């Protein structure tokens, strides 16, 4: 019985690393275990973390979306440009989200209908939507949003948590149910495992991919709007390079880059590890840039470790089958 799957052992390893990181950090700083500190960890990276939830679906599906950071900036710039030209703010937000969803939809359409690798399509998207953001705002910075919008980004919404964090937790639960408990979620896995088999089993592969890319765009748009709310002003270059951090979190969570395996729980653990590790390294006076290097190393080592883990239980299972 596959009770003890690769994913379970991976999640256990992540949990051990996480607990280790937290215990170490707690010994380094007395305020570390404060709820406020934990909320703060998330506050500064909340946009990336939100996008990571959608990215998990996309990568499990066997695709990748490199354009998310650019779509974030694109949505924020659409919002700012609409606001600047006098559109009511609520409508401006709706336009920005619609623009981001269409950005995802167009890329999904190209991926699903032509079969071109999503790496290429979303690389074009990465460059192109950043370009669109730049066309909209040029080198200006636009701010002076309504007060309630700034509060949305910075003020406490539920207990000590800002709106974005609550949204993230809701997304995590809803996403987890969709991915692990619905037939749509199973289809995402099946396609990621083998798109041809999925197609011959009668799954509408193109439609699932279209839905996922549109969702990825929409979620990136939401993150972009929330980023604008937190920063208080928007430039065309916001969020540059976020895609790499986001993908790192997802892959560290045990999601296979080839698709078909991984869990949202693993990704949630990986997110906590990355945030706690950065915080802990910061407490230990390690510079931000070295932290990035450490997380890069963690990414490689994690997959190396997965390869080793893969070998051990597999042999055991084969031995059981023979017996």
């Amino acid at each position, binding site marked *: 019985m596959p009770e003890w799957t690769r994913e379970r052992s991976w999640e256990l390893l992540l949990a051990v690393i996480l607990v280790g990181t937290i215990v170490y950090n707690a010994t380094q700083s007395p305020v570390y275990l404060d709820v406020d500190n934990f909320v703060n960890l998330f506050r500064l990276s909340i946009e990336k973390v939100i996008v990571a939830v959608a990215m998990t679906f996309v990568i499990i599906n066997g695709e*990748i979306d490199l354009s998310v950071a650019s779509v974030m900036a694109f949505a924020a710039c659409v919002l700012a440009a609409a606001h600047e030209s006098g559109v009511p703010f609520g409508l401006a937000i709706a336009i920005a989200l619609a623009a981001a969803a269409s950005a995802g939809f167009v890329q999904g359409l*190209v991926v699903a*209908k*032509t*079969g*071109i*690798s999503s*790496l*290429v*399509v979303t*690389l*074009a*998207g*990465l*460059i*192109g*939507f*950043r*370009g*669109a953001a*730049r*066309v909209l705002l*040029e*080198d200006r910075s636009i701010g002076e949003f309504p007060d309630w919008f700034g509060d949305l980004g910075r003020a406490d919404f539920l207990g000590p948590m800002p709106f974005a964090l609550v949204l993230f937790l809701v997304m995590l639960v809803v996403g987890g149910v969709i991915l692990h408990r619905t037939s749509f979620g199973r289809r995402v896995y099946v396609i990621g495992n083998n*798109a*041809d088999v999925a*197609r011959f089993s*009668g*799954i*509408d*592969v*193109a*439609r699932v991919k279209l839905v996922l890319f549109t969702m990825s765009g929409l979620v990136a748009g939401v993150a972009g709007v929330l980023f604008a709310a937190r920063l208080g002003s928007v430039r*065309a270059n916001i969020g540059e390079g976020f895609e*790499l951090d986001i*993908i*790192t979190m997802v*892959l560290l969570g045990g999601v296979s*880059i*080839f698709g078909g395996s991984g869990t949202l729980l693993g990704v949630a653990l990986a997110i906590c590890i990355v945030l706690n590790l950065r915080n802990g390294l910061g407490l230990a006076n390690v*510079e931000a*840039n*070295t*932290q*990035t*290097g*450490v*997380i*890069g*190393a963690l*990414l*490689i080592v994690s*997959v*190396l470790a997965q*390869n080793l883990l893969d070998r051990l239980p597999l042999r055991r299972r084969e031995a059981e089958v023979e017996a």
Partner: protein
Amino acid sequence: MTAADVAGLHGTRRRPGRTAVWIRPERVKELSLLGVIVVALLVFSFLVDDYFSGRFFNRVTTSVAITAVLAVAQTLVIVTRNIDLSVGSIVGVTAYLTGQFASSNPSTSPAVAIAIAVGLGALLGAINGVIVAYGRVPAIITTLGTLAIYRSWLISHGEGKTITADSLPSWVVDLPTRTAFSIGGLDIRVVFAVVVVIVVVLQVAMQRLRWGRRLYAIGSNPEAAAQAGLPTRRLVLGAFIACGALSGFAGFLFLSRFGNITVVAGQGLELDSVAAAVVGGVSVLGGSGTLVGAFLGAVLIDVLDQSLVRVPQVSEFWRNAILGALILAAVIADVVIGRRFRRRWSAEARPHTRVDGSGDESDATRVPALTAAEQSGRPDA
């Protein structure tokens, strides 16, 4: 583009007579790219006064030298169905360290400086290659990691100091303006000439040498290549080392072009190199694409880049939007043209199945596979 690969792998050209006008798909790609470049130049010459000038030619050729080397480096790895996202960081590290060495040893000769840059690049490439080939970590993960690791090492090593042009030996800074020879008033810079030679030599090697054909074979079908007894791990490692060495050379060119090198030098070049390769018709799924194509892709992007800023009607902010659209257009055109050619190729190849024994079984499997792939483009019934 498995069709032409198979032909090349077995050293069979199309038989003369029946298909006398046959052109291989990659030649079509290269020629159409060349056509697009010419069209772009003509369009810009209408939009911009005094467009064709010696200065413009120099500006394009010096800046394309760096991206072209990186595009070629990236292609070597991509044809094996891998990717190297760390090339920008390798450029940064090699440019910075070579600059540091040259500025503290003013008597550094060109050979030594280039050897340091290339050797260092090869070393960093070897680290990538070992992790990918022997650690079995997917290339995108490995190089995403080393992208961060190499850069963060450089930042902590450099401590925010900048290598300045006046601390470098004068030959380094003068190199980009050195002219090799002139044709009809156009100066061909030494750097550009060297890069063209590198591209041509490597292209011939990829097309003619066993090593090159084997890289394509791995990218077309890794399992089949391993089954056929190819030393796939060693070959992939070799591709990463070659990519690193070329990126190191690009780092040297970066140093000589800019002179002032900060710790963030070369950031983002990895995406430029992938973009150039993709525009040049290199398939990220591996097994397909030529170095000349990647070179032309780099030239096209650079021509657009350098020309758009001179068009008064277009603001400089359009650059990325146009580039993104261009990449998308290039890959879609590639799929459409490629499909048509493959269909023709397989239609022609079928009557010959007996002549080239090694070719026909792949044909037989390819044709249904192709139709399946085509059907995937349509909504499922």
